[in-house]
């Protein structure tokens, strides 16, 4: 159906076309030039039917239809090729004269114009061609300027003046034949300027000729040789061209001076321009005060609505300049600036002296501070440096700061540990017998250090016990043990050589998270070297995996330098294995005897945790060598086992970061037996005693079943838990 319709349409078009074919004349266009008349054009046909003088008739109706028939041609259409213009410039609704830019000198140009109504797109035909030749610069001395109207201005909305420039056309310089015309309102004639001011090239319109709210148009014409050229044209309305005269009679008074004498407020006074009729309300002005310090180039401004206004916060002792200008409210332009007003507020003498003194003091203070800073920075004394520039405390978990241990600040550590139920801070203070194991933390390169084993076992046995070998890849622990106690080692049990490492490594995350304290006291410096028992070693787990560095790193700084007596070269076949030993006895010379004990899978963490506690606690020797007492170790062991026995009392044994529950739980300590008399190394002395419970007074109640004989004499440096009570006040 649609196809049929399309076909019919096309046929119809063809048919119609054939009717209005090129055989006959066609109407090319209808055009209106000024919207008052219009013209229709048609083209002659090319057919041979028509003679040359055939006549055309044009019929029109006011309605939609238009019928054409033949008639005598009265209008010839314009044909011919039109050279394509190289430059087209659109001048939007401008009146002559108009400048055209960017012409090359020395070339000849052809200029022509055409026009159209603003809202329609149809252009008229082209005007005549104007030939333009721009001579080269040698022949042109001065650029030609057209005369033009520079501006019209009314100062008070009652009269106005228009100004123009004459330009430098040769024809005009001889005699100023410029004439000025104006029209007022719509459809009026051009009238000449009522009052010429020739010396100023302006035209003045007084009150009789001035009407507000009516549009004026002005023209600058040349009458020379009746050429009647219009040089410039301008239209405006008086209420838009109001530009007042500047204010007059500037003056100022001092309002007040600040207490310090540095700032002052002033009141600026002036008068409105006399031409403006403020009184009647015909003009209402607003003002702008601009001021700046003498040397500055930036003007600050303040707006004012009346003829006086304060200016605040001017510095005394400086000279200021003030100028004013005004403008009609809601209309018009700003006036020119008034004359400058110079202001100088003298500063009080005492102010000047005070400021001088102030400056002197400031300079001295700065000098002093810089000197001190230099001194601090470049001083060699670390103490002074630390005093002035203390290190920024890093966040850490509540626990022991290795630095504290290093410095041996007993009190702080005490306070830290006091929170722990089982910690008796003053436990060891009075006991001169107690000496402590010197515990060292390793260098980063743990491999260079000797394993604990070496120290404990002495050099002879170092190679024999393979089960002590442990991968010490990244455990940075060293252990420094004094070799001179090797002969005193009675028990070579290294039950301690358990899988401390293993536990630690398993739980390294746990312990590691407690960033603070890490105490991986991997090296238990002991002044002994226990002899390992190879038999017992079989069962020991040789997977003493190295703990990660994290555990050990923190501990490095914590403790003191490794004891110099440790033989660094002692490499044992045991490898680097860290373990903990139960101290069974402390010799009067300060050596520590390890008890063979049973194999304990005491947690490294536990041991670690335990060691720093007591270690930090002691202050019997204000030396950097810290020792863990046997008692401490025992006690803590007891705690650990006690915790095992009574997992429910976890809250009592909340030893924060030192004891992780998992760690403790995993301790498979069978029993903590107290070490017996270490003087008989051949007798296995129970290492740990299990704690039965911990009562509210923070004393430990040991499992009586496992207790060794209470009749055991108190050895030096050896305390039974139940004997703690005797010591603890």
């Amino acid at each position: 159906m649609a196809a049929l319709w399309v076909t019919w349409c096309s046929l119809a078009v063809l048919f119609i076309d054939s009717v209005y074919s090129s055989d006959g004349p066609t109407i090319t266009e209808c055009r209106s030039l000024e919207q008052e008349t219009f013209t229709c054009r048609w083209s002659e046909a090319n057919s041979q039917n028509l003679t040359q003088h055939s006549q055309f008739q044009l019929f029109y109706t006011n309605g939609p239809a238009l019928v054409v028939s033949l008639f005598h041609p009265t209008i010839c259409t314009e044909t011919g090729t039109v050279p394509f213009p190289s430059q087209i410039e659109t001048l939007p609704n401008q009146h002559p004269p108009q400048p055209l830019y960017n012409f090359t000198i020395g070339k000849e140009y052809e200029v022509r114009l055409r026009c159209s109504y603003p809202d329609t797109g149809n252009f008229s035909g082209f005007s005549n061609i104007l030939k333009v030749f721009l001579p080269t610069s040698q022949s042109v001395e001065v650029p030609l300027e057209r005369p033009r109207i520079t501006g019209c201005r009314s100062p008070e909305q009652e009269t106005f003046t228009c100004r123009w420039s004459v330009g430098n056309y040769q024809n005009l310089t001889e005699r100023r034949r410029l004439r000025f015309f104006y029209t007022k309102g719509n459809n009026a004639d051009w009238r000449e300027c009522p009052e010429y001011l020739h010396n100023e090239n302006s035209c003045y319109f007084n009150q009789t000729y001035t009407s507000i709210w009516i549009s004026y148009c002005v023209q600058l014409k040349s009458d020379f040789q009746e050429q009647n050229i219009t040089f410039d044209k301008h239209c405006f309305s008086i209420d838009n061209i109001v530009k007042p005269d500047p204010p007059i009679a500037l003056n100022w008074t001092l309002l007040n001076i600040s207490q310090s004498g540095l700032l002052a407020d002033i009141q600026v006074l002036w008068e409105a321009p006399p031409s403006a009729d403020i009184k009647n309300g015909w003009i209402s002005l607003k003002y702008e005060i601009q001021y700046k310090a003498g040397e500055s180039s930036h003007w600050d401004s303040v707006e004012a609505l009346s003829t006086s206004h304060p200016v605040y916060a001017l510095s005394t002792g400086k000279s200021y300049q003030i100028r004013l200008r005004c403008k009609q409210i809601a209309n018009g332009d700003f006036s020119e600036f008034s004359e400058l007003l110079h202001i100088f507020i003298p500063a009080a003498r005492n102010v000047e002296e005070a400021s001088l003194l102030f400056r002197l003091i400031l300079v001295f203070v700065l000098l002093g501070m810089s000197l001190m800073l230099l001194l601090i920075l470049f001083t060699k004394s670390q103490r002074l440096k630390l005093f002035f520039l203390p290190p920024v405390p890093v966040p850490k978990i509540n626990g022991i700061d290795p630095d504290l241990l290093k410095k041996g600040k007993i009190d702080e550590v005490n306070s830290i540990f006091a929170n722990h139920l089982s910690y008796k801070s003053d436990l060891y203070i009075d006991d001169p017998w107690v000496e402590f194991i010197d515990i060292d933390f390793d260098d980063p390169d743990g491999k260079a250090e000797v394993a604990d084993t070496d120290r404990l076992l002495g050099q002879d046995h170092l190679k024999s016990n393979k089960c002590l070998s442990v991968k010490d890849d990244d455990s940075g622990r060293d252990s420094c043990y004094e070799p001179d106690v090797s002969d005193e080692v009675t028990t070579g049990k290294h039950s301690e050589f358990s899988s401390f490492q293993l536990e630690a490594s398993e739980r390294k995350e746990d312990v590691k998270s407690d960033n603070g304290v890490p105490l991986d006291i991997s090296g238990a410096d002991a002044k002994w070297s226990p002899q390992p028992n190879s038999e017992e070693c079989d069962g020991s787990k040789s997977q003493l995996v190295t703990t990660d560095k994290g555990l050990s790193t923190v501990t490095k700084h914590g403790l003191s330098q490794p004891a110099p007596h440790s033989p660094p070269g002692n490499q044992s076949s045991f490898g680097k294995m860290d373990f903990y030993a139960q101290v069974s006895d402390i010799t009067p010379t300060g050596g520590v005897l390890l008890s063979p004990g049973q194999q304990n899978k005491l947690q490294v963490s536990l041991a670690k945790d335990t060691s720093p506690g007591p270690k930090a606690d002691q202050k019997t020797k204000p030396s950097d060598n810290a020792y863990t007492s046997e008692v401490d170790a025992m006690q803590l062991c007891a705690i650990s086992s006690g915790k095992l026995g009574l997992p429910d009392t976890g809250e009592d044994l909340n030893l924060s970061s030192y004891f992780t529950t998992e760690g403790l739980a995993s301790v498979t300590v069978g029993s903590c037996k107290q070490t017996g008399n270490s003087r008989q190394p051949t007798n296995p002395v129970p290492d740990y005693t299990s704690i039965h419970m911990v009562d509210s007074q923070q004393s430990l109640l040991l499992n009586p079943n496992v207790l060794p004989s209470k009749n055991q004499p108190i050895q030096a440096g050896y305390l039974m838990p139940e004997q703690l009570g005797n010591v603890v006040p």
Partner: protein
Amino acid sequence: MPICVNQHGACQTISIGELFDRAVEISDQIHTLSTDVLNEFNQRLIQGKHLNLSIVNSCHTSSIMTPQNKEDALNTSREHLLNLAVVILRSWRDPLQYAISRFSDNTITSSILIKSMKIAKQMKQLAKGLSKISEQVTQQSGAVQQTLQWVQPLSEDGGSIMLHLYNLLHCFRRDTNKIDSYLKLLKCRFTQQSNC
């Protein structure tokens, strides 16, 4: 006679001077806004083609005989001047609504629309204020003022609508300036009779 603002309770009198102050303030605002609207319209829609002012001169308020300079204004009676201001104000109500509706239709920048609506609001305020003043001045309330009829132009193509709007805005700016000047003159003459 002071005007009674609060009819239901204690009467609060507002002086004529205060009323005129407020009226002048509003008329300043209206004139500033109308100038802004015209400039923006010119800039954005006519694209800087500075239309010859002679084309756009046929303001519908031209038929109202108003004093054209200060002398004539001073020679006009106060009441008549006030009346003229009111008439001009009222005669712009419809054209302004037409302009606003045209602005909403086209994709005119919103600032022009916003300002125009503000102008309409202010015009209402000013009309109220002036009617209060004239009540007080002429001792008559609700006097019917003559208003000028304004014929909405036939809807034509977009280009001529723009021209028409430009014409409208131009005339409006002129008339707001006229009202502003008259009110300032009247303010002086009503408050300081002798001094002006």
